[in-house]
C-alpha cells in the first residue's frame, strides 16, 4: 500500500478509529497494529509476509537466549547466528545474483567457467529496513544496552509497525520498544502536528518528486540525445527528486506514527542546507547512517587511531552504505566518491566542524555558508548521477556528455513551460524548508501563530497544490532497496 494512494487514505482512518475507540487496552492495540501492518505489507505481496514473521521469531528467540546465557562465548555464538540469519536472508534476496555475476566474471579472467545459474528473485519490499531493525535488537542485547522483551506481541509490533516497515526510519529497540510496551495516550498537539507533517510529506512526494521524475526519467533514458546542459538539469532534478521522495516518505511515516501516539526518529534534518559533505551525511538518512556508525564504523575503529585508520574506516563505511542501496557496482562507486570527498576534511580534522544550525538566529546565510551549501549541493548533483544511471557505463557516458561543448548550449527540456513551473514549485519548497530548518519538520511552526483562517487557508493551498500538480503516481525510490 502506498502512502499516496486512495487505499491508504481509507486504510488509515479505519485503523485510527479501531485503535483509539475499539481496542483501547495496550495488548489489543498492539495486536491491531500487527494485523494492520501485515495487511499493509500484504497489499504488495503477501508471499513475503513469511519473511517478516521468520525474522521476528528468530530475533525474539535469539534475544531471549542471549540474555539467558551466562557464558560469553555462547552469547557471541548466538549473536553470530542472528547476524548470519538476517544477513543470509538479505544476502540471498538482494545480492545472490550480483555475487554470482561477479564470481562468473572473475573465473572467466582465469579462463574457467563457473557453472552456476542466476535465480529469478524478486526483492521483498522493505527487507533492508526490517532486517537491520531486528539485527540491531540482538546486537544491543549482546552489548547489554537493552534487556530482551518477553512479550512477543510487543516485539512483533516493533518489527512490523506499518508506518516505517517498508522504508524506515530504521528504529532502535531502545527507543521504540518502551513505546510499544507502554499505554499510549492521545495527544492533540502531537496528532495535529503529525497531520501537518503528513501534508508536507505528501507535497514533497506528489508535487515535487513525482513531477521531477517525469523529466528525470526522460532525460536519463534518452541521455544520448540531449545536450550537456540538459543533462546537468536532469541530474539537478534527480537530486531534488530523491530527497523529496525519501524524506517525503519519512515525513508521512513519522506523521502517521504520531497519530498513534508514537515518536519515530528524525530521518532527515534538511540535508541540502549543509555546509560540507560531512554535515550532509549527519543530516541525510540519519537512521541508516547512525546504524552503520554504531554497528559497523565504531566497532572497526571509528575515528580513533591515526588519520590513515580514520580514512580506512571512512572508505569502509561508505562502501557498505553504497552496497546497502543495491547489488550494483554503481552504488559502490557512489559510496567511494562520497568517501573521497570526505578525505580533505578528515586530513584537516574538519569533518566534525559544522554541528550547529546554519544561519542560526539569522534569516539568510552568509557568503561562506552559501558557498559551502552550493559546493556540497553541486557535488551531490554529480555524485547522484551514479546513483540514478542504469549502470556504471551509462553514468560515465552521461558525465562525458556533460563535460562536452554542448554544456554551453541552452538546455532543451521535453516541456519548457512545465519545467519552469516545476522550478517555481521547487523554489517554494526550498523557502518553506529554509524557514523550518530549526524544527522537526518544515511545517511545524510555519503559520502556527497566525489566525486559524490564515493557517487553514495555507493548508488548503498545499492541498490544492497536491491535487493540482500531482504527477503520475510513482513508486517511492527507496522501496527498491
Amino acid at each position: 500500500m502506498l502512502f499516496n494512494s486512495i487505499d491508504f487514505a481509507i486504510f488509515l482512518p479505519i485503523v485510527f478509529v479501531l485503535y483509539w475507540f475499539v481496542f483501547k487496552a495496550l495488548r489489543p492495540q498492539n495486536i491491531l497494529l500487527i494485523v494492520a501492518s501485515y495487511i499493509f505489507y500484504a497489499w504488495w505481496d503477501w508471499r513475503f509476509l513469511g519473511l517478516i514473521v521468520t525474522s521476528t521469531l528468530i530475533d525474539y528467540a535469539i534475544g531471549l537466549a542471549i540474555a539467558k546465557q551466562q557464558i560469553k562465548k555462547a552469547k557471541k555464538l548466538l549473536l553470530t547466528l542472528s547476524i548470519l540469519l538476517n544477513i543470509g536472508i538479505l544476502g540471498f534476496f538482494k545480492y545472490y545474483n550480483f555475487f554470482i555475476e561477479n564470481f562468473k566474471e572473475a573465473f572467466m579472467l582465469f579462463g574457467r567457467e563457473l557453472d552456476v545459474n542466476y535465480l529469478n528473485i524478486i526483492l521483498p519490499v522493505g527487507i533492508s529496513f526490517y532486517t537491520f531493525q531486528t539485527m540491531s535488537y540482538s546486537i544491543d542485547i549482546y552489548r547489554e544496552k537493552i534487556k530482551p522483551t518477553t512479550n512477543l506481541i510487543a516485539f512483533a509490533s516493533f518489527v512490523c509497525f506499518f508506518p516505517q516497515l517498508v522504508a524506515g526510519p530504521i528504529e532502535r529497540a531502545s527507543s521504540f520498544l518502551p513505546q510499544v510496551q507502554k499505554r499510549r495516550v492521545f495527544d492533540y498537539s502531537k496528532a495535529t502536528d503529525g497531520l501537518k507533517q503528513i501534508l508536507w510529506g505528501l507535497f514533497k512526494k506528489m508535487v515535487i518528486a513525482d513531477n521531477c521524475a517525469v523529466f528525470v526519467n526522460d532525460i536519463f533514458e534518452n541521455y544520448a540525445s540531449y545536450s550537456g546542459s540538459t543533462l546537468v538539469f536532469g541530474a539537478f532534478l534527480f537530486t531534488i527528486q530523491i530527497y523529496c521522495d525519501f524524506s517525503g516518505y519519512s515525513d508521512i511515516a513519522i506523521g502517521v506514527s504520531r497519530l498513534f501516539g508514537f515518536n519515530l526518529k528524525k530521518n532527515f534534518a534538511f540535508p541540502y542546507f549543509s555546509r560540507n559533505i560531512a554535515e550532509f551525511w549527519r543530516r541525510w538518512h540519519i537512521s541508516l547512517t547512525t546504524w552503520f556508525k554504531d554497528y559497523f564504523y565504531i566497532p572497526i575503529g571509528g575515528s580513533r587511531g591515526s588519520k590513515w585508520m580514520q580514512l580506512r574506516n571512512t572508505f569502509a563505511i561508505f562502501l557498505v552504505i553504497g552496497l546497502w542501496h543495491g547489488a550494483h557496482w554503481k552504488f559502490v562507486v557512489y559510496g567511494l566518491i562520497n568517501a573521497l570527498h570526505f578525505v580533505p576534511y578528515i586530513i584537516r580534522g574538519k569533518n566534525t566542524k559544522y554541528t550547529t544550525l546554519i544561519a542560526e538566529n539569522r534569516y539568510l546565510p552568509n557568503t561562506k555558508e552559501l558557498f559551502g551549501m552550493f559546493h556540497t549541493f553541486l557535488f551531490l548533483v554529480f555524485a547522484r548521477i551514479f546513483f540514478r544511471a542504469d549502470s556504471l557505463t551509462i553514468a560515465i557516458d552521461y558525465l562525458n556528455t556533460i563535460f562536452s561543448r554542448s554544456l554551453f548550449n541552452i538546455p532543451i527540456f521535453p516541456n519548457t513551460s512545465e519545467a519552469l513551473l516545476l522550478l517555481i514549485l521547487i523554489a517554494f519548497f526550498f523557502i518553506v524548508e529554509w524557514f523550518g530548518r530549526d524544527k522537526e519538520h518544515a511545517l511545524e511552526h510555519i503559520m502556527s501563530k497566525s489566525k486559524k483562517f490564515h493557517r487553514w487557508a495555507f493548508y488548503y493551498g498545499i492541498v490544492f497544490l497536491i491535487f493540482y500538480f500531482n504527477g503520475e503516481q510513482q513508486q517511492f525510490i527507496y522501496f527498491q532497496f
Partner: protein
Amino acid sequence: MKKFLKQTCFFLVPLIIIGVTLEVALRQIPNDYEFKNSQIDLEKEFIKTLILGSSHSMYGLNPEYFTEQAYNLGHVSQTIDLDYYLLEKYIKVLPKLKTVIVRLSYTTMHEQIKTGAESWRLKDYNLYYNLNVSNALKYESEGLSVKLKNNLTRLKDYYLDHKKMIKVETTGWASFEEEHAMRSIETVGPIIAKKHTAKDDMLVEENLQFLDKLVKLCDDEGIKVLLVTLPAHKSYRDNLEKHQLEVVVSAGEKMKKKYHHCRYLNLLKDDDFKDEDFYDADHLNRDGAKKLSILVDGFISAL
C-alpha cells in the same frame, strides 16, 4: 480526541464537498468511451466486423470503407488485455459478428496500460464500459485518477467553452484534425520508436496469453480473427528494435498456425503507403486510413 476529530472533520468537509461536486460534473462530460459503449449497443444487431486496438487501429481503420457493417472499438493506448476484456463483453451481444480485427503493433506484446503513463485511462473502462479491469480504487473515479489540472481543463472546455468532447464518429473511427509537417515526422520517428521499445520482455508471456485467449474465444465461436500489423513510416520502422519486432511477428504467425480461423497480415513495410498517408510516424491520416481500410476489407472478403 473530540477536538481533534471535530477539527479534522471541519477541515475535510469542504474538500469532500468540492471533490464530490467535481466528480459529478466530470461524469456529465460526454466522452468517447461512453459514446462508443452506447453506440455499439444501438448497432449490436448489425455489426459483422469488430475492430480492436490502440490509436493505430482507431485512426487507421475506417468502418465506412468496409463492405459489411463494421465498428471500431479501438481507443488511444488500448492494450491487448483490454482488447480481450472488451471482446469478452461484446462477443455475447453481437449475434452477427463474423470477423474481429486486432492490431498487432510493435508494442502489443510488450506493454499493458496498467504499467504505463496512460494507466489513468483504466477508469474509462471501469466507469463507461462497466468492465472490471483494475481493482485499484482510484480507477473508480474521474477525479482521483486524473490530476486536477487536467480535470479543470476538461471542465472549462465543456462547461465554459462548450467544446465538442466526442472526438470519434458514429462508426467509432476518429481522424486527426490537423496535418503534421513531413520534416517533423522524419525527426520524431526515431524518438517514438525508442519510446516504444521496451526495456525487457517481462510482459510478453502474459500478453501472449491474452492474445491466445482472444483468438481462441473467436475460434470457438467460428468467428474469423485478422491480426494486422499496420503500416508505419520509414523513420519509425527503421529504428525498431529487431528482437521486439520479431516477438510480435512470431506471435502473429503462431496464432495463424494454431487457430483455424486466424489470419495474420503484416503491412508494416507495405510500399503502397507513402509519406502523404501518414499523420505522424506511426499513425495514418484520413487518406491512409481509407487506403488501409479498403485493403483490409479486400483481404477479409477473400477469406
